[in-house]
């Protein structure tokens, strides 16, 4: 039994059932329909007050049925996968079409071979909570050992396995299991009457093998150093200044400043600030920006997206030119191009939208030290918590948890808790130096565009000549 057959058995449907549902979905004249079955089991295990004393398991099961007519979408889901319930949902989704000829179900079923982008060597469903507990207790011990100012540690392991069966009106069937796991730790320190907190996390599409000693050590060291430096940090004088973005998590700048604005639904609707820029030069020749769903075990990777399209590495910006938007099937048809494998969704409860995967900038030629030394008065930032963008106006922000003031080309006073704001196209054009150290940040990045989606981001160190820094007077 192949993967699709085994999923069909699990969801209790046959080839003919799937074809029948497509027929109902297209009965009012829809152009295209798809069916997305999902069964997810997620677990979490929590450490608090140095004891692993909280756990949870969550099961979600259902099917979403989508019909596309032109650029319009009808969507309905049900948690009950009897044919009667699914036909009812298909009938509701079908109503997006109010004219046209009913279409027949596909005669043939095509099962494309998708390259494997992740694998749980030790699947989570075969691992007891008791096998996960030592990771949390060891993490707790290492954090407390690292600094006497630590007063509290909160740590958590989350894992999930999602079984997916997809079928569409083109006859394409796809099935797979998607693992996801993360370890997150927060540390609270007190010193001379002050309290500070810091967090670190790692997330991969992996099984239990992810919980290595190295991971625990790395997280413990990182969270302690991130928290400890806060005692020395203050807030800089606010206003416009040059900012060096450190390698890795500065990828949030790409995600917010340009990534969302490159999602093709915003461009199709004409609401993105980059709507008229396809094929045009938008920044330095040295800049190439990628959205990549093919990095093995990466949090943002997918073997195929939630529309049955194979994942790919998509150059959004190539040598300074806007090369491609990020497409789902609707926008690809609108732009008369192929989908890029970016049609993603939070779960069967949501219709797919163009979403990022792992978004990063490729390395440049400078050294990070050269970028810093070129700044007389500015800021170096290297740890962030969240960001946001206004797609049309182009204003984006990201919140800086830590960094340093740059004075005469040298890092001096640590800084914390400041918001940085800029304008997407202007900030991209204002990148005047790119280092040779591009790296993906493997934290628990989650994008919240209408629905939640796991992503990751990366960046080499870059110098932006002008951003507006939140700060004191």
């Amino acid at each position, binding site marked *: 039994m192949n993967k699709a057959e085994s999923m069909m058995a699990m969801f209790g449907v046959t080839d003919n059932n799937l074809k029948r549902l497509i027929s109902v979905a297209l009965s009012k004249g829809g152009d295209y329909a798809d069916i997305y079955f999902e069964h997810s089991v997620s677990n979490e295990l929590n450490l608090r007050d140095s004891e692993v004393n909280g756990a949870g398991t969550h099961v979600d099961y*259902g099917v979403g049925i989508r019909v596309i007519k032109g650029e319009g979408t*009808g969507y309905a889901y049900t948690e009950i996968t009897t044919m009667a319930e699914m036909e009812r949902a298909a009938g509701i989704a079908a109503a997006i079409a109010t004219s046209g000829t009913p279409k027949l179900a596909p005669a043939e079923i095509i099962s494309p071979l998708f390259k494997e982008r992740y694998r749980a060597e030790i699947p989570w469903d075969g691992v007891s909570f008791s096998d996960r507990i030592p990771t949390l207790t060891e993490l707790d011990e290492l954090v407390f050992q690292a600094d006497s100012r630590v007063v509290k540690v909160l740590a958590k392991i989350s894992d999930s396995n999602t079984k997916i069966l997809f079928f569409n009106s083109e006859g394409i069937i796809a099935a797979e299991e998607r693992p996801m796991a993360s370890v997150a730790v927060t540390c609270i320190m007190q010193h001379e009457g002050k309290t500070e*907190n810091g967090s670190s996390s790692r997330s991969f599409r992996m099984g239990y093998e992810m919980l290595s000693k190295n991971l625990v050590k790395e997280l413990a060291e990182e969270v302690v150093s991130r928290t400890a430096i806060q005692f020395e940090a203050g807030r800089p004088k606010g206003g416009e200044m040059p900012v060096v973005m450190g390698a890795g998590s500065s990828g949030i700048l790409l995600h917010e400043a340009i990534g969302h604005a490159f999602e093709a639904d915003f461009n199709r609707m004409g609401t993105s600030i980059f709507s008229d820029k396809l094929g045009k030069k938008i920044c330095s020749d040295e800049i190439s920006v990628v959205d990549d769903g093919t990095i093995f075990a990466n949090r943002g990777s997918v073997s195929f997206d939630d529309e049955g399209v194979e994942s790919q590495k998509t150059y959004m910006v190539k040598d300074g030119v806007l090369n491609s938007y990020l497409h789902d099937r609707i926008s690809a048809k609108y732009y008369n191009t192929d989908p890029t494998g970016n049609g993603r969704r939070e779960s069967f409860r949501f219709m797919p939208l163009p979403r990022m995967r792992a978004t990063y900038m490729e390395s440049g030629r400078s050294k990070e030290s050269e970028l810093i030394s070129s700044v007389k008065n500015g800021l170096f930032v290297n740890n962030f918590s969240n960001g946001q963008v206004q797609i049309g*106006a182009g204003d984006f922000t990201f919140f800086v948890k830590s960094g340093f003031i740059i004075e005469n080309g040298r890092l001096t006073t640590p800084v914390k808790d400041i*918001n940085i704001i800029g304008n997407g196209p202007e900030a991209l054009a204002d990148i005047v130096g790119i280092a040779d150290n591009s790296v993906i940040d493997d934290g628990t990045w989650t994008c919240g565009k209408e629905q939640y989606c796991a992503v990751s981001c990366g960046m080499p160190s870059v110098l932006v000549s002008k951003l507006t820094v939140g700060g004191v007077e």
Partner: protein
Amino acid sequence: MEKNIKQIVSLALDMAKGAGCSASRAGAEISVQSSFSVRNNVLDRLHSSTGSTLFLQLFIDGRYGYYSTNRTEADELKNFIDKAAEATKLLAPDNDRVLPDKDLLFTGIAKDLGQFDSDFNNITPEEKRDITFSCSQEIFGKDPRIISSNCEYGDSLEYYYMADSEGFSGESRQTSYSVSAECSAKDKGNARPEAWWYESSMKFADLQRVGCGKNAMERALARLAPRKLKSGKYNMVLENTVASRVVSPIISALNGAAIHQNNSFLAGKLGERIFTSDLYFIDRPHEYGYEGSRYFDSEGIATKPMNIIDKGVIKSYYLNTYNARKLGMKPTIEGPSLLSVSLNGKLPSHVPEITLENVLKVSGKGILVTGFNGGNSNSSSGDFSFGIQGFYFENGIILHPIKEMNVTGNIVELWNSLKITGDDPKRGSRWLIPTLMFESVTFNGN
């Protein structure tokens, strides 16, 4: 369907007992939702769903686990609960994990809070579609600078039933209707500023259908040609649509978990005057006709009227049973219900007298904030920095929109610079936060 939900909850509690749990709590919700959206006056999306989920909390000799599933056939549910109980037994015991004292639980008669519309199932798809298109027609073709519009009608019915192994049971049901509009306008250069507006109600008949699209369009056009101001101190007027953003850090800091984990700038401040002596955060959870009203929290603890902040003094933390026991205190309630903020300790009247216009007139020069763009606050210190959108005003007159600016400060200091509260909270919100005016706040721009 509601009867079925009660049976599932009862079955789950029996199964938990059979699996060796010393106590348990189960809750189940049914959610029915539909929406229509129209983009540029063409039907763009329709969405319909019905779902139900069972939530389960298991207590086994101090050990505690929380579980959920939407697979509630008896055999599958039993297997799930047996496994959940086995998993819970692997955890470290914590004797503070218990059900609440019975004395604290809601036991009275749940008088109607005016949150449910019995006509919910009688509203036709045609009516919903018509509302969406009417909203769209307030925008479409009205101004050449508008390049895109998206209007949506949505409704939902949420039913929740909860019971525990000690005999508590309670239920709530709430309907909701909304109409919203979002517009983008073409500015000079490539910018396409967007704006939105929404109206919502719990009764279909109360839904304000006229004006939503027009409001969104006017707000988008008002954002054309923004300017960046010089960094400095400005008076800040917060529109009632976004004012809750500066309330949330206070509520988070009053949460028992944050207090217990030493991760709150209000830890150890109970009974102290932290804020200006005329500031009140009041909770009136039994008011009729408000979204935030409720009789019990997620543990079944009865809600009651309380002043969280009274004359600037912290009178209460938000403490559930677990955090209260950890702190050696009495449980209060897990979080706010119908929260309102004022400088006089009164609930806002139904017909507001102090509106945004009144506040702007007496606020001199400053920045009217109509939206936030990212940013965050430090839970330990209360230091915050938020991106903003809004307008520069002088003597009640809005002069121009602003762009790329941050507001930065400390949340306690900010609240101590509060000078005016309106009595105009936007209806349809769970919290009743009116227009707020803060004096001399740090903004970062040029």
